[in-house]
Every structure is written in C-alpha cells, then in structure tokens.
C-alpha cells in the first residue's frame, strides 16, 4: 500500500482520483484486445447459433434454439462428445503421470540442458510433432512402427491410423509427448518455489527421502496438480490441431471430437449456424471449467499480494 501514501490523487471533476484514472488507462489496451477478440466473437457466436445461416447468403433467419435442438438430436454429436471424453481422460492420465515424474527428475537433476529440452518440447509447434510422429509411425517404413512391431504390440500389416482403437491411442500419445511437458513445467515451477529450509528442517529431524517426499513435496504440489488437471482437461477437450493433422477425425469418425465436428460442420458442410452452435456448446463446457478454475485459483489473494 506504500504507493498510495504518497501518490493518492485528489479527486477530479468526474469523481475519479488520478490514481484510478491512470490505473484504468494502463489496462485499457488489454481491455480493448479482450473485448475485440474475445467478447465480440463470443457474443457473435451466441447470436449466430440462434440463426440459420447459409455460407453464401447474407440473410440470417432467426430460428431460436432450433440449432441446439438439431445438434442434440444428431448421433454424430454424441459420437464426438464420447470421443472427446475418452480423448480427454486418456490424455490427462498419460500427461499427468509422465509430466509429474519428469518434473521430479528434472528438478532433482538441476541441469540446464534437461530443463531446456523439457521446455522446448512444449513450445515446438504441434504441426512439427504431428508430422514427425506421423512419419515415424508409418506402416512398415516408420521407425516407431517397426519398434512396435518388434515388441509384438501390433502386427506388421496394421496401419495405426486405419484402426479406430489404435488411432485414438495414437492421438493421445502423440499429444502427450508435447503436452505432458506443460504439466512438467507447471509442477517444476512450483517445486522450485518450495523453500529449501523445509527440507533442511526435515533432514535435521532425521527424515528419510521418502518422508520428505510424502510430507513436504506432495502437499506442496496438491494445488498445482488440481490446477493442471483442470487446465489440461479444458484444453484437450477443445483441442483441434493434433487430431486434425493426424487423423482428420478418422477412421470412420472414431477420433472425431467436438472441435473437429464443429470444424467440419462449418467448413465442409458450410452450416455456419450449426457450426457456431457446437462452438457455443464447447464454450459452455469451457465456462463451467472456468468457474471451477477461478474458485480453485482464487485471484483475490493475488490481487491483495500484488499491491
């Protein structure tokens, strides 16, 4: 609060003191961006989802909630929803296990190269990861396909992207190669902020490594793990690129999740109204996640600390 003592302004004519005015000016550009690129498209999607729209016809026909009714009667919608849930749960399970184990290892090693590899995997473009894995998993000539064949996990003639179960497993694992590193980065950031004197005090009292892990590390990580599960669940449920690049939703819609379904409705079927309806449904799921996230996250605390 120190800043206030010196610089609390005199209230001006419109009843806002200088500090508030200056404060609002500093966040104004952010507000403009958020308004222009988040709120407006959101509102527009909501409006569009209530209309019947044809791609080359500027005329919108108001249909109320008919689009939602149509979508909720489509078998494809439920297929996409189920696939999305399978993909999300599978991805979280793999990413969480992998991510936490790697974070603990990397933190223990404290090696700049290892940390760099970890962060790099997360920021390498998804398109690159997908193309590289796609080539490595190509039937017969791919390195990983051969490895899997040698291990007896799949037959020589099996193409991963042509089998519905394998395709789903494939998108989950390829996605996890990149996105597990998000878990690692978040957990690593938290691990590095645990005060070392916790461990020193435990060592003084004769705790073993296992004791320290169970009684110090795990409780400290509980919050960040909950946060990561929530964020990754939202992001994997709404993930478009990895699945689109690897399978385009195939074979026979077995990896078609809601984002793929919305994309196809909008750009293949040119049903803008139905496409935005699915986008809105995804947005509602996101909003529910968002409320949970804000409750978990508690920005009040940071706002107070931030002063």
């Amino acid at each position, binding site marked *: 609060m120190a800043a206030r003592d010196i610089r609390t302004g005199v209230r001006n004519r419109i009843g806002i003191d200088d500090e508030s005015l200056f404060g609002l000016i500093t966040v104004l550009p952010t507000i403009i961006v958020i308004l222009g690129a988040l709120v407006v*498209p959101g509102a527009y999607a909501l409006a569009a989802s209530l209309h019947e729209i044809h791609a080359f016809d500027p005329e919108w026909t108001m249909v109320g909630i008919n689009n939602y009714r149509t979508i909720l009667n489509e078998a494809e919608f439920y297929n996409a929803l189920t696939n999305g849930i399978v993909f999300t749960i599978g991805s979280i399970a793999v990413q969480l296990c992998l991510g936490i184990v790697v974070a603990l290892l990397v933190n223990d090693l404290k090696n700049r190269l290892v940390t760099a590899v970890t962060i790099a995997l997360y920021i390498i473009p*998804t398109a690159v990861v997908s193309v590289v894995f796609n080539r490595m998993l190509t039937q017969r000539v791919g390195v990983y396909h051969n490895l899997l064949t040698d291990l007896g996990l799949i037959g020589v003639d099996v193409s991963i992207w042509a089998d519905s179960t394998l395709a789903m497993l494939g998108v989950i694992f390829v996605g996890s190669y990149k996105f597990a590193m998000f878990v690692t980065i978040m957990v690593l950031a938290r691990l590095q902020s645990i005060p070392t004197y916790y461990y020193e005090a435990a060592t003084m009292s004769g705790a073993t490594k296992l004791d320290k892990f169970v009684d110090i590390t795990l409780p400290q990580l509980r919050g960040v793990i909950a946060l990561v599960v929530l964020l990754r669940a939202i992001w994997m449920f709404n993930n478009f690129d990895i699945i689109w690049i690897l399978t385009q939703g195939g074979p026979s819609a077995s990896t078609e999740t809601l984002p793929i379904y919305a994309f196809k409705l909008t750009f293949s079927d040119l049903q803008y109204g139905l496409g935005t309806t699915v986008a809105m449904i995804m947005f509602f799921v996101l909003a529910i996640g968002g409320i949970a996230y804000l409750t978990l996250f508690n920005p009040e605390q940071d706002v107070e600390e931030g002063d």
Partner: protein
Amino acid sequence: MARRLSRMSHFVSRRVIKKLPHDLRKKVLRTVKYSILALWLFVAGFPLYWMIVSSFQNPSVFSNPDPQWLPSTAELTLANWAILQSTDVFQLVLNTFIVAVGVVAIVTFISTTAGYGLTRLEFPFKLTFARVILFGYMIAPIVLAIPMYIIYTSLGLLNTYIGIMIAHSVRATPFGVWLMWKMFQTVPVAKEEAAWMMGASRTRSARDIAIPAVYPGILAVGVFAFATVWGDFTFARILLPNSDMMTLAPGLIRLTQRGAYLNTGHLMVISTVMSVIPIFFAYKLQDTLLRGFRL
C-alpha cells in the same frame, strides 16, 4: 500405509544405506542420476534426433522397410535443404515472421502497461479484470476461430495480417499480463518513491526505473508471444485460408499432402527449421519462462 512405508524407509536407511561408505554412496547416487538423465534425454530427444537426421538423408531411405536408428554415411546428403530456396517456403517463413513481429509488439506493450498498473495502482474493478484475464488464459483457439471466420468474412479481414494478429494477441495476452504483474512485484516501490521525491512524475518513474528493471520479463513475454504465433495451426488454418498468406504450421501440413513432389526429407528440413528457434529460446530463457508459469 504411509506410516508403514516411512518406517520401512527408516529401516532401510539405517541398516543398508548408512552402512555403506560415504564416497560409494555418492558414486551410486551419481550413476543413478546420470543414467536417468540419459534415459530421459533419449526418450524425449529421439523424435528430434530422427527429424534432424532425416533432413540429411537420401529420399530412398524413407522407403526402406527396415529403418535404421543410425544413419549410414553413404546416405547422407544436403540435397533436401535446397527446399528452403523455393519461393513457397520463403513466403511461409516471411508471413510467419510478419505476423509474429506484430503480435510480439502488441502483446509486450499491453502486458507491460497492464502489469505496471496492476502492481502499482489501485483502481475499480481490478478483481474483475484479474478474473477476465485468467479466464482468457483458458480459451481454446477453435472456439474463437469459427465465429471470427464468419465476422472476418463480412469485414474483409480474412487473409489479412492484421486479422490474424488480433486473434493471436488475445491468446498471448493473459500469460503476458500475468507474467508482467509478477515481474513488477519484484521491483521495490521505494526506488520509485525516491524518484517521486525528486519531482519525477509517475510516467517518468515507470519509464526510467520500473520498466528497465523488468526487461527479462518483457523479453519472456515477447518470446511467449512469438512461440504462440510460430506454433499456431488452428487460427492460421481458419483465418488465413489463402495459400499466399499461409504461415509455417498450416503450410507444412499442406506440403505433406503433396506427397509426390516432396519427400519426408524435405518435410523434415522445414520441421527442423521450425524447431530450432523454440529450442534456442527454451535454452536461453528457461528461468524467466518458468517464473511465468508459477501461477
């Protein structure tokens, strides 16, 4: 259960580990650590290794039904790298850079001002603002890209640099504002107070004292914004459908579909180029980036 494990660990520690000589214990620990390190680097790094090696291999290698883990020197060639001279690829790189530079400029500017305001100033609706920022952090590109496509079609912003820059800005801003907020908190307010005592205005103290102190943060925000653009597929695929305007990620995917003209080696050249910059940043800026993720 936990207590039993703890008791067991004490037992093992006392009876086995502490009985060993100190330097042996250290040696074993170091061996274990470095073998884990090697294993991790192998698992994580193999696809990257394969990508780089493939970019230097003869096309005939890619139809070999028994792919080799180590390349034979006879098959190594620089021929694939000639693809970088093609105008198509040059246009992709150029487009990506133009968009990235614009987004980096927008995002670093708005994050720095907002970060300063959030740290130093009291203003109404600060909490609501923080909430909206956090909510923006979770938004998925596909949810925005579909309505944006329809809006942009009618506004004529489809296939324009400015259109995609707006879309990317909203993705990178929440992280940027958050990181700058955290960064400004590390600058003691006393330094600015000293300047105010000398008669400096708030703008002056922010410009000359607070902002120079957070340069690493600004750099990290810039890198994050750059990486957002560099790696993006969804926005670019939907908002830049024209092949002249395409950026690297959708461009790479488009090239994969022209199998006859390009082989795996060519694709791996482009993939390698796309990966080099992220790897460089990850190595150089890891500490600041990690701080940004400390939510």
